[in-house]
């Protein structure tokens, strides 16, 4: 089913339990190569847990994850990064005592990139170009801890783009708590990277207008299960979805 090469990422009956609590239950998703997929759902429905499962920070209790038809759910996060998966965190995680530029260099110098670290000057130029693109270039030598929340969000997003090859970008609430100007920078970079580099995105977001503008399709997660899938307009009319949002 995934051998046709169209599906980039598939999860099969993915389940994650924390003691008695089932955070993700029997979740099966198929993400097409080049797609921008939205993940929406009420608070506590399991969206971040899903991101953690795909990126490898959590081990699934049951089920499987495939990237390009190869099973990846036994791999550690750094090896998944080597396979082309990168992520951001709901609460931005930057390296606070490193400069903005140094933050950008970490993924490019990391084990996941083989001997790319040997081309240090080239990596620095790539990082500077990306910082320019997200309008953080003037801050490259500032410590990350001096950045605002929105700038932290920009930085962690830009940092992820340093990985090569980058196939799948998982973003957890990239628009939460950022001002409209930064929001549009983030939107533009997602669109550009998708169009020009063919990067596939899975974006968890509560921001319906942004989701509408960006995402081809959305998956609605409720109590750990996927209860609907389609365009935002389609799912918005499904009674189960409306109920999940009102009830949850």
């Amino acid at each position, binding site marked *: 089913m995934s051998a046709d090469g169209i599906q980039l990422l598939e999860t099969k009956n993915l389940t994650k339990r924390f003691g008695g609590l089932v955070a993700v239950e029997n979740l099966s998703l198929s993400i097409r190569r080049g797609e921008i997929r939205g993940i929406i759902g009420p608070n506590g429905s399991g969206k971040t847990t899903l991101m953690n499962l795909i990126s490898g*920070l959590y081990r699934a209790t049951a089920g499987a994850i495939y990237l390009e038809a190869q099973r990846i759910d036994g791999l550690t996060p750094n090896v998944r*990064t080597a396979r082309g998966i990168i992520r951001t965190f709901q609460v931005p995680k930057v390296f606070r005592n490193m400069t903005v530029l140094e933050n950008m260099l970490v993924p490019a110098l990391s084990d*996941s990139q083989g001997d790319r670290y040997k081309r240090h000057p080239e990596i620095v130029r790539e990082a500077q170009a990306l910082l320019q693109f997200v309008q953080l270039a003037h801050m490259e030598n500032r410590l990350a801890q001096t950045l605002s929340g929105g700038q932290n969000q920009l930085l962690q997003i830009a940092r992820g783009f340093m990985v090569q090859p980058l196939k799948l970008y998982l973003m957890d609430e990239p628009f939460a708590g950022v001002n409209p100007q930064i929001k549009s920078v983030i939107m533009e970079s997602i669109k550009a990277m998708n169009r020009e580099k063919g990067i596939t995105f899975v974006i968890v977001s509560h921001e319906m207008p942004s989701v509408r503008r960006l995402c081809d399709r959305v998956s609605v997660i409720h109590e750990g299960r996927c209860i609907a899938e389609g365009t935002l307009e389609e799912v918005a009319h499904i009674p189960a979805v409306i109920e999940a949002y009102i009830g949850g």
Partner: protein
Amino acid sequence: MAGRHIIFLAAVYAFLAPIPLWLGEYFIHVVNVSLYYVIMAASWNLIAGYTGQFSLAHHAFAAMGGYTSALLVIHSGLPILLGIPVGGLLAGAVGFFLGTLCLKMRAIYLGLATWAFAESFRITLSMGYRLTRGDLGLSTPTLLATGQALHYYYIFLLLAVVGLYSMYRIVSSRIGYYMRAIRDDEEAALSMGVDTVKWKRFVFVVSSFWAGIAGAFHGHYIGLLSPVAVDFNEMAILIIMVITGGLRTFAGPIIGAVFIELLSEFLREYGQIRMVLFAFMVIVLMRVNRDGMVGLGRRIWPALKAYVKR
């Protein structure tokens, strides 16, 4: 490239080599001990400062290197110059296991586990008196036939220059990025493709190795080893040195080790009260200036320059 580095190191060595010519025998001894602490503090800074793994077993690794080398030399007739590296390697190997044990531990738990390890080691040294001579202490063959501190100075200096250089190479390479990233946010480092397990182990091994080397050499210099070296006070002194000089700066532990060793020598007549003074100093430093003397210097320097220009 490598040639240039060797010339630089030789120049540093040549520059520092004449220092004892102005000093008396006892003071040269004090300088030697400070060089021992320089290696200890700098290698602890790798694991605790740069990587954020606040290990409290560094002094135990030094003693491990010391006892390993001494016992091998005494019982198997191994030359001291081989015993010292074997001591370092064994400390490094044990560092690997302790590091592995602590992989999943965070801050306080890692501190507790490594402290418990050091305590167990100290007690083992005391109890295994048939081999170690316990609290009586083990008299150790000295490296040189002469007891003159001056001769040891040249070896200590060589060891310190080589040790610091190798540590500098690590922190200024990509591994330095990994270490700092791990300290700031281990999950993020892992998700950005850093093999955090591998590199945390690596730093544990390297830092224990240097502690073992320093401890072994120190043992063959002083001529006596005892479980007192694994007393928590020894670890506390290292912490004080690194924090006073500047945690997570390269020069910090070097400056801090020399400064505290000299200061504690000047205040020798006050005995244990010195520890209270040092502890107080650390608390004040943590309040006003977390980067220690190096941070202070960095702040004062621009102001000074501006003042001079005016």
